[in-house]
């Protein structure tokens, strides 16, 4: 079986590959503030936003969204405008 991937197919795979938005813990942002930011930026329920906020707090970081690159870039800018420490990471395809 051939393992060759054409340029076009590779491009299509890259376009489909989701990008991760990671939020990192910091000692300054207040916990209820971070929860509300997740609700505002992603439209998450209070329950999910709280769960993600606690993940950030206890684990040092949390994967808060996995989505198309353009959308992830848009959300990253919004998180930075709210003052959260967030990064954009490419998932392994």
């Amino acid at each position, binding site marked *: 079986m051939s393992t060759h991937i054409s340029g076009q197919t590779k491009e299509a795979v890259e376009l489909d590959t989701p990008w991760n938005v990671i939020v990192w813990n*910091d*000692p*300054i*942002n*207040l916990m*209820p*503030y971070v929860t*509300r930011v997740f609700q505002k930026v992603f439209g998450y329920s209070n329950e999910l936003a709280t769960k993600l906020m606690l993940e950030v707090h206890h684990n040092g970081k949390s994967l808060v969204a996995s989505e198309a690159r353009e959308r992830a*870039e848009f959300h*990253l*800018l919004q998180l*930075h*405008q*709210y*003052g959260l*420490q*967030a*990064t*954009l*990471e*490419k998932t392994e395809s």
Partner: protein
Amino acid sequence: MKAKRKKNGTVELSFATEEAAILLELPRQLRDTLIRQNEADPATARLLPRVSTNPKVAAEYKALVGDELRRSKLERVDEFEATIRNAEVGRSKVLFKLSPEEYEIWIGFLNDMRLMIGSQLDITENWDPDFDTLDPDEWLYLVLTSMQCELIDLGF
């Protein structure tokens, strides 16, 4: 500061005159930090954080988004300053009547101020200030934190 949200969504903040005076100096401090972008100042990295652990991704993002984050934060400083100018100044109190949009501007501005001062003070999770020996920046950080907590409680 006394804060309340009215039924029509506006937020009223009432400050003692000396309390309100603290607010006047804040926009200049944050604006200076954002304009200077001094790499030796930890506030710069905290206000304008890294965008990826991958340098190639970071470079591509920078090419796309450019200076938008800094520009939007500077714009928010101007907007905050405009709300200060619209205050109703009484004999012993200063009253701010904020629309829902202005309330959001205050939340974002105060958070940026806390990020700026907090990173310069190197605040950690275990920070335990001695209230008898607070320096002016520590005092300001605590005042702004208290202010932000009250604002968030109004339903950010």
